[in-house]
């Protein structure tokens, strides 16, 4: 009886896992397929990767994405760490609303409101406006990871430092910061991934002339399905996977940080 139910559950869950992975595997497999059509396996080739590395637009877009992601993850990690510490030490309603609301509302709202904001200020849409927008939505994610890390910390350590005469800054620099460092690094990697992958908010804040990797992929797939997109997708998946593995090694709780939202 019990084992029969176990099998049904395994089949249903297995179907769920297949649903999650088969599409991504197909994208990767067809990136090596020697055919323009993503329909049938013809033969192995690395041509699409070759095309990709000679595609000036794509390389330019990747450079933009990298520059934005590095800037946005650096700034949002500093601000997000501060926000996480503040949410733990000095919690206020205003702070949690400001930090968590950008994550809770539909993404498109943030995109269009920032579009209005930048245009009304006569701020030229481009790399800078995209980076500023990315920082705004990444702060909350970093803050959640850092706060979770602080919540698991032994409070007596900072008290001991204070008793030994350390100033608040010294206590933070030499006790708190090293202890929350895994959370900070994980948060930074998460912010980098979110920034390099973001499409919706970038779409509204980039303006006409600026292209990032997701925007370039979007304009390519709006026109046609081409295996070059499979190739760039596979590389992007590899990058994300590497970052996530590093992040989860540094801070195993990061994978649950989404739960903190619920």
């Amino acid at each position, binding site marked *: 009886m019990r084992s029969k139910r176990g099998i049904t*559950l395994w089949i249903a869950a297995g179907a769920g896992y297949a649903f999650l992975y088969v599409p991504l595997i197909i994208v990767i497999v067809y990136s090596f397929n020697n055919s323009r059509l993503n329909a049938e396996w013809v033969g192995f080739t690395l041509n699409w990767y070759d095309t990709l590395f000679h595609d000036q637009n794509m390389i330019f877009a990747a450079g933009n994405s990298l520059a934005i992601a590095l800037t946005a993850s650096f700034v949002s990690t500093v601000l997000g760490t501060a926000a996480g510490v503040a949410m733990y030490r000095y919690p206020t309603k205003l702070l949690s609303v400001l930090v968590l609301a950008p994550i809770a509302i*539909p993404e498109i709202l943030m995109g269009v409101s920032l579009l209005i904001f930048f245009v009304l200020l006569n701020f030229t849409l481009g790399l800078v406006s995209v980076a500023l927008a990315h920082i705004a939505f990444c702060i909350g994610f970093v803050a959640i990871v850092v706060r979770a890390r602080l919540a698991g910390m032994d409070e007596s350590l900072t008290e001991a430092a204070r008793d030994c005469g350390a100033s608040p800054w010294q206590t933070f620099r030499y006790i708190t910061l090293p202890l929350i460092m895994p959370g900070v690094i994980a948060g930074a990697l998460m912010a980098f991934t979110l920034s390099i992958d973001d499409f919706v908010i970038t779409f509204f804040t980039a303006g006409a002339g600026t292209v990032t990797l*997701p925007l370039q992929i979007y304009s390519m797939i709006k026109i046609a399905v081409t295996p070059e997109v499979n190739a760039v997708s596979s590389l992007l998946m590899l990058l994300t996977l590497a970052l996530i593995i590093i992040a989860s090694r540094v801070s195993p709780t990061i994978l649950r940080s989404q739960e903190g939202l619920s």
Partner: protein
Amino acid sequence: MSSATARRSARLGRWLVSGPPVLYLFVFFAVPTLIMVLASFRTPGEFGGLAPLVEDGKLDLNLESYARFFSEAIYAEIFLKSVWYALATTFFCLALAYPLAALIARSPKRYRDLLLLLVILPFWSNFLIRIYAWMIILGPNAALARTVNGILRWFGHEPVPLLFSSFAVLVCLVYVSLPFMVLPLYANLEKHDQALLDAAQDLGANAWQRFWRITFPLSLPGVFAGSALVFIPALGIFAIPDILGGPEDSLIGNVIKQQFLETRDWPFGSVLSIVLTVAALAIAGFAAWVARRNLGTPSSARKVSA
């Protein structure tokens, strides 16, 4: 250090820590949102954007864009269609997520993190890649479309396109939302007490009864949390219908995009965005409220076993 200086330095520390993120989010989140709310009461400019705030000594504030939303049936229709898609997405996600979450919660502890990781990993791959994958799978030359249309032809039906259809939009919506349903559901199911199920079995309840009268009622907080996490983003989606949908699959997100980037009618676009956000938060708030009412775990368990 005197206590007065200590207090002053504590206050200074507090400002130094809270100040920068609060200031940043105030400028780049709160202010833009408020400007958008204000823009929804303005008149569209002649060449897009907004009309001047003060013209001929009159302040440009009106309810015309709101009136337009509530008077033109097409927008209410699109809005209801979006709600319908988001609800269907939530329902199918729940059906797929429940076995996944239950399996992970019942697995030996050492496998749980890995099984959970496998659910979350696809969520971290690029959003557009996950949409693109379905363009390939549902494409007219792909095996799936040929098989389906082969069967249809056999029964004498006209071939149907799988891509650029509501079917494609819905499948992809479920695909990108699934992890958000699994996580809270798993977090809830993991905490269930096996003793309750054993007791029910001893009292003669079969598997179905045990699920419907114990596991499911106890998992409602997880169900509602997951539903909110799936429903809110699904309601505002524009990229999926834009890429995978046909002309009649335009949802509220697509109309918002159109108002801002093509028609350039900011006030009406703002009205649509505000209606969308208020509806999403209201529905999520309602779900949270229901979940909290059901949260009295011990009492509901007692009710079940009574």
